[in-house]
């Protein structure tokens, strides 16, 4: 069973979105480990390694998506993790989604992506 680690980096504590996607992914047959809010890049990467995760998802609603994604990607590289795709969900303006992909984010889920569609796209990334 593919294993997915979800986390909220930074200080935002709005969890409704990430809880929804956690449940939808679980219902779609994934094993989901949600780390909770206020996670540092190092803590997130430690969990990815410890859980032997197949995919990492970050939920970001504050507008700090680029900073947080870059820091987590740097921490992944630093720890030699190069085979775990990073996806980002939250309030991400379309223009910012392109920036996120440019720095190495595998997929971006802005407002309006259905739970079914998100699960399907994540499933494809994990199957690669």
């Amino acid at each position, binding site marked *: 069973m593919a294993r997915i680690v979800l986390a909220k980096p930074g200080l935002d504590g709005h969890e409704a979105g990430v*809880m929804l996607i956690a449940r939808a992914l679980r219902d779609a047959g994934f094993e989901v*480990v949600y780390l*909770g809010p206020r996670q540092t890049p190092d803590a997130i990467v430690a969990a990815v390694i410890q859980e032997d995760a197949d995919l990492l998802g970050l939920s970001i609603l504050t507008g700090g998506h680029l*900073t947080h994604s870059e820091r987590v990607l740097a921490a992944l590289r630093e720890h030699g993790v190069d085979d775990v795709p990073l996806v980002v969900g939250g309030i991400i303006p379309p223009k910012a989604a392109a920036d996120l992909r440019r720095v190495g984010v595998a997929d971006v889920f802005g407002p*309006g992506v259905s739970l079914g569609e998100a699960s399907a796209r994540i499933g494809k990334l994990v199957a690669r």
Partner: protein
Amino acid sequence: MTERPGQFPFTRGDSPRGPDPEDWFSTYYSGAGTATDTNKLFKERFARSDGRPSLLLAMDLPTQVGLDPDDDLAVGEVGRIGVAVSSLDDILALFDGIGLDSVTSGTVGNAIGVFTCPLFERAGIDTGVAARDMRIVLQNDPLKEYTGRGTQIFPIATALELSTDVVEYVHRTLGSTWKPQYTCSTQMRWGGVSASQEIGFGLANMTTYVEAAARRGIDPAAYLSRTDLHMSSDEDLLGEVAKFRAARRAWAMLVERRFGRAVAEAAPLKITVFTAGNRLTAQRPLNNIVRTTTHVLAAMLGGVHEILVPGYDEALGLPTQEATALTNATKEILFHEAGIGRAADQLGGSEEVERLTDELTEEALEWFDVIAEKGGMVTAISEGFIHAEMTAGTYRRQLELESGERRIVGLNHGDTGEATPLEIFEGNPNAEAEQLERVGGLRASRPEAPVGAALLALQAEATKKVADPSHNLVPAVGTCVEARATVGEIFTVLREVFGTTAAPTVAAGSIA
């Protein structure tokens, strides 16, 4: 109808004439970047407002969780969703050229009330404004953070006592123009609970605070005269009007049951509103102007006092000036042009509204009792009960949206085509660097001895509070604020003494 506005049980309003419409206008919750950035914004608002506008500070997340901008966890968050307020100097810069006696101000900062209260008090002293000439509104509602927003710092029992320190200090020292605490059910509703749960859980939180204050010798009637319930105003127009009516009625019944009829008659529930930002969509955002209008309409017809309204660009970022101006115009058009609010309880007597009011009152009282049976709100939150109810509600709604059972125009119904992209608020991109510089400059220029002494004294006082929870820390924090200690320095001391709460993490296996 036998009930009358302004009479027990206050279903039809907390006063005979309904709320003063002036309370509805010129109320803003905003802030971004550094204090200098927000000062500019406030000056523009102030110049355009009649009378005494309410400029409530939205603080950034590092400030709200008691961190300095140079903390590792603060990276990327400084000045982003609100203004960075790291010390007394920042609050002085925020109101520079405006004057704390010509606005109403205050903030949410629920985990840091013990800091924000002396911050405003000292800012008044430093600028020669007496406390009685200031109107300050502090939300200081820590319970909501453990369920709704996640900016909690301390173990929940400690947080409750610290917030009660502010209530006690304000009641004894600062006079009636200061509102030391109000209960906010908005985020629970946004997080997925129903209308009757919003009432029941909100009133349960409020009861927790009344009782905590009573343990410090604050009379319940006195406490209630200076507080309100801050609710959402959601999409179901008549249901929400009934919700506000039911909340007042349920509260009157609960207060009568607990404190007697005299208190219940003297202290009707005052309701203020933050309209449903969670219902505003990123898709076809101009539709949100219509949505917001119905939310405001429900609040006005429901007899609430202040109404805060998110911009139609809420789902895209912080509001632009244009979006903010429109929120005020919405209220003004509804009042001056449409005649909403020219009498109390304009929908009273409508068969549907009366039936919904009865149903919601009954359900709300049941939810209140569910919490009471669990041993109160602190236990219910700690057990994860509220969180589970919120998540269940959100998931149910999402499935309704995806199956098409629930139709949201522009999202899954009607014209869902691409809309013209809107102008999006662009904050100061250098805010984080500038705030680091401000705090660095402060640390380099302030005399260090008084800061060290004040922080040591705070540590000693906080240690006393561990043994005696009623030991009030506001004066000791005030001395730190005066010495220009930063928010991070103050809360580092408090975290070391009281410990912290882990954010409520829910194992995936138990996601209900």
